[in-house]
């Protein structure tokens, strides 16, 4: 376990070094989503097996999440990009990395690749989109709906009865982040990417989406807006691709790295 001071925020990260590999190993950096997510979504699912396949794995808790400090404000996409840059610099990760982003973590990965194209070897996006105006509109609406639903204790009770008390606790944890910060107002605000920004994402991208997930309205939308993107659709799967289908995600990721690392 590590704790580093990044942009004034005490940031929790975990490094799982490659095993069974001769020579310099590629580095995968896992970026989790917002709300009730944390680095645990990667650490407890794909991190160890990927490291055992000869890949250095780095994952960290975003500001306001997990064991990273929670400032009251500062949740613009630009802040998350600066944090990722700061973490890589602090840990002296200078070679281009393979970014694996889940949900909003994928959006951070796209924005980072647009700003620092030379630092990204590839992106594996899980239920994510680049930060376009369309994304912002959809994200803003979705987030406001979720916040409104979570403010009603009856809805949290329904979550508990329907999905189990574990998920009800997660929902309350997300409510705590929302109540203590300006994340709702800031997170969908960008800065957003227009056509030239999307064109700057030159690295190869693998977009993994659930057929019933965040991109269910247009499963090929991400591939259509990027220069080099392949889409993998998981039939019948909702937004929780990483947690519910982590064995398949691991297989896709290892195949992707074999091609691109």
């Amino acid at each position: 376990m590590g704790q580093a001071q990044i942009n004034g925020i005490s940031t929790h990260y975990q490094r799982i070094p490659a095993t069974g590999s001769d020579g310099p190993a590629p580095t995968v950096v896992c970026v989790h989503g917002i709300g009730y997510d944390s680095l645990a979504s990667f650490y407890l699912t794909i991190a160890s097996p990927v490291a055992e396949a000869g890949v250095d794995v780095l994952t960290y808790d975003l500001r306001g999440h997990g064991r990273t400090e929670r400032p009251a404000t500062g949740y613009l996409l630009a802040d998350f990009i600066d944090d990722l840059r700061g973490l890589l610099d602090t840990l002296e990760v200078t070679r281009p990395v393979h970014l694996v982003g889940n949900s909003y973590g994928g959006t951070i990965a796209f924005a980072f690749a647009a700003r620092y194209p030379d630092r990204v070897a590839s992106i594996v996006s899980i239920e994510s989109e680049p930060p376009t105006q369309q994304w912002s509109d959809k994200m803003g609406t979705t987030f406001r709906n979720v916040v409104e639903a979570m403010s009603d204790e009856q809805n949290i009770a329904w979550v508990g009865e329907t999905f189990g008390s574990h998920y009800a606790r997660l929902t309350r944890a997300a409510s705590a982040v929302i109540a203590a910060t300006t994340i709702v107002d800031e997170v969908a605000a960008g800065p957003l990417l227009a056509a030239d920004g999307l064109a700057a994402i030159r690295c190869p991208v693998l977009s993994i989406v659930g057929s019933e997930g965040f991109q269910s309205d247009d499963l090929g939308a991400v591939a259509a807006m990027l220069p080099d993107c392949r889409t993998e659709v998981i039939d019948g799967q909702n937004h929780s691709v990483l947690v519910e289908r982590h064995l398949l995600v691991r297989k896709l990721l290892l195949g992707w790295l074999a091609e691109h690392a």
Partner: protein
Amino acid sequence: MTTSRTDTFDEVCATLRDVLGVEPDEIEIEREMSLTDELGLESIDLVAVNAQLAERFGPQVNLAAHLAEMDIDDVIALTAGGLVDFVDDALAHDRRAER
């Protein structure tokens, strides 16, 4: 190092209390208690449990790698006793590998 099952249970309970930030007299941990629903561990706490178990028992006890092979429902249902059994199995596997 040879560790009996009773010792393992005590060590695992000490780990769980440490991660939860409670004293021994504050909570009595029983084998059948679920880590998440009854003891209140969040997934990020399991990352800390993973680190502490590796520190107490050695790197052959890799909880993260173990959980990576399980479905989310099985992870949520994991009990203190299940965690003890995992540690004992990992230690036994390591001892067999050494022979």
